[in-house]
């Protein structure tokens, strides 16, 4: 672990991570990695239009929560949300199809890369306005609390979000109402093109603000799926037990630019290379070998993951384009768009 990544007060309890769980964490990280790489390739082939924000390098966070969460928990994420949506079990052809603007897309081509949603899987939306989904996640947590279901809401966002008002409103609100919501800041060091440190009053944009809301300051290695899994499990237990919200700052790094348009030239020389040594997928594989998993097992998982991505790609490519008749559908609950009689 990089010694620059400090763990503050709340070191996660050493929750025993079973062998099946470890394999699941590896499998999911791989799927997210391969799928994001495929999305990038499809961009280069001009099969995906618009913009896209990849989670390459940040997969451990979404994967760990995906494994730790209950199927009926809620996820809220940002425009960088392919990984978080997939991690809840959304269909991969649905994700790639949406990116490609196909009928099989999760949103039928209405939303695109930045709005992936699969309500049946608890993926309650990807939100493209910074900060907007923090209060929405609080609302879903309120609903769970009100209905007494012990569900939790998990809300992922980037470091840049910590400087917008909705972040602070949502945190205060959630603490006062003691809501079962977990706010997960993925600190990848850059808000978009600008280093977060250049525009933020504190070193840790989320964790250093936690005390303002009476929350423990939690910084965790976001490139370590086991550490993430432990922090996630602890926060989920706290939420279900009525202990209220958590704010987690996960240190990570995106291997690509902010979006498709960004070659990330602003990064100092050597920074990417340093973080590539801590690639969450590669380091996790090494750890599994140390824990006694054998090569063939891991190779099988890798082959399966690639097969899944290939199959999803083929299905999405073969899917028809949406119908232009869909344009005026689903504005309202009656399925239509009528605003007059």
């Amino acid at each position, binding site marked *: 672990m990089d010694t620059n990544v400090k763990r503050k007060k709340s070191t996660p309890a050493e929750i025993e991570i079973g062998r099946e769980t470890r394999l699941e964490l590896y499998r999911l990280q791989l799927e997210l990695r391969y799928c994001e790489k495929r999305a990038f390739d499809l961009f280069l082939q001009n099969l995906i239009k618009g913009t896209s924000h990849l989670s390459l390098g940040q997969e451990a966070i979404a994967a760990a929560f995906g494994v730790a969460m209950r199927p009926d928990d809620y996820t809220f994420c940002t425009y960088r949300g392919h990984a978080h949506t997939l991690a809840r079990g959304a269909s991969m052809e649905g994700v790639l199809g949406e990116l490609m603007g196909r009928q099989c897309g999760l949103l039928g081509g*209405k939303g695109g890369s930045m*709005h992936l949603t699969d*309500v049946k899987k608890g993926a309650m*939306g990807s939100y493209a*306005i910074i900060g*907007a989904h923090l209060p*929405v996640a*609080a609302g879903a947590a309120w609903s769970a609390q009100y209905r007494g279901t012990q569900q939790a809401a998990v809300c992922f966002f980037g470091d840049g979000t910590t400087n917008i008002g909705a972040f602070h409103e949502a945190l*205060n609100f959630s603490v006062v109402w003691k809501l079962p919501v977990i706010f997960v800041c993925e600190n990848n060091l850059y808000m978009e093109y600008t280093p977060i440190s250049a525009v933020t009053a504190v070193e840790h944009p989320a964790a250093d603000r936690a005390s303002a809301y009476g929350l423990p300051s939690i910084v965790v290695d976001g490139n370590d799926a086991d550490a993430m899994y432990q922090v996630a499990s602890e926060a989920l237990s706290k939420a279900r037990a009525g202990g209220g919200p958590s704010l987690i700052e996960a240190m990570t790094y995106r291997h690509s630019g902010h979006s498709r348009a960004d070659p990330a030239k602003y990064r100092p020389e050597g920074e990417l290379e340093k973080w590539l040594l801590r690639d969450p997928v590669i380091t996790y594989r090494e750890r599994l070998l140390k824990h006694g998993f054998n090569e063939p097992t891991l190779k099988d998982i890798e082959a399966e993951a690639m097969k899944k991505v290939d199959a999803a790609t083929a299905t999405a490519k073969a899917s028809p384009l949406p119908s232009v008749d869909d344009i005026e559908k689903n504005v*309202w609950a009656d399925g239509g768009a009528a605003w007059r009689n």
Partner: protein
Amino acid sequence: MAELTYRDAVAAGIAQEMTRDENVVFLGEDVAGAGGVFKATVGLLDKFGPRRVRDCPISEQAILGAAMGAAMTGLRPIAEIMFSDFLAVCWDIVANEIAKSRYMTNGQISLPLVIRTANGAGSRFGAQHSQAVENWAMAIPGIKVVAPAFPADVKGLLAAAVRDPDPVLFFEQKSLYPMKGEVPDGEYVDELGKAKVLRQGKDCTIVALASMVHKSIDAAALLEKEHGIACTVIDVRSLVPLDTQTILSEVSKTGRLFTVEENPRLCGWGAEIASIVAEECFWDLDGPITRITTPHVPLPSADLLEDNTIPSVDRIVSTIRRTMG
């Protein structure tokens, strides 16, 4: 029938729906313990308890975001934004999130929620507490827009809004809160998207909303009595959905249309109605469509200035007289 104030009709409508459906919850600033700054929600906390009637911090994004998150997961929240001017600080949640989520997710997300807010002039609060902003909301696809003028409509349309499967922005005209009117007893639910013809005359049609309805009725009485001009007065009640059938049919009968709007001139809702009428019943018109609006200025606070900024009975009368020749 009981006589209730517009303000009491708000609480009556909310109470009716909270009694009927356990999933209806109510949140806002100063709405529970204080009963609302306009005292429109007095008694709800006592009746339904702090689990369902909740005071919030001054965090409009959190309030509407929470309402949205609750609505998409099974509750039917009513959220209050104290003054409609404050919608500007949470407009992202209204315009980008609440209004668009169903469409963007191809129907996966349902948001049965109501945003209640005190709108409009008459209280001398100035440009940040007295605007009429219903036209802001009308411009966003995906949100219904309702603005009652009478206590009975407050109760009935509020109940309809709560039961509606889509998000509704419910504008209460703050100067009407003390106004009294007959409200049906027992469970009362109206229908969104239906305008009401309050008075019929052969010479011209006046289309109005909220407090402008009352001014239009007074103006119509004066026009008939003193100038022999007989006016139809339509209370639009709901901008989205818009009852164009009633408007087009009444304008066809009189051949003249006047809209009376409290919102500032540019892109006020009357412009949309004028455009629809011009496109769809042009050949029934006997003269130009005329909009009577607040001038395109921020609202001033002094009583003399405010009274001369928003459309008055005198201005409606003189504009109609002048235009009708």
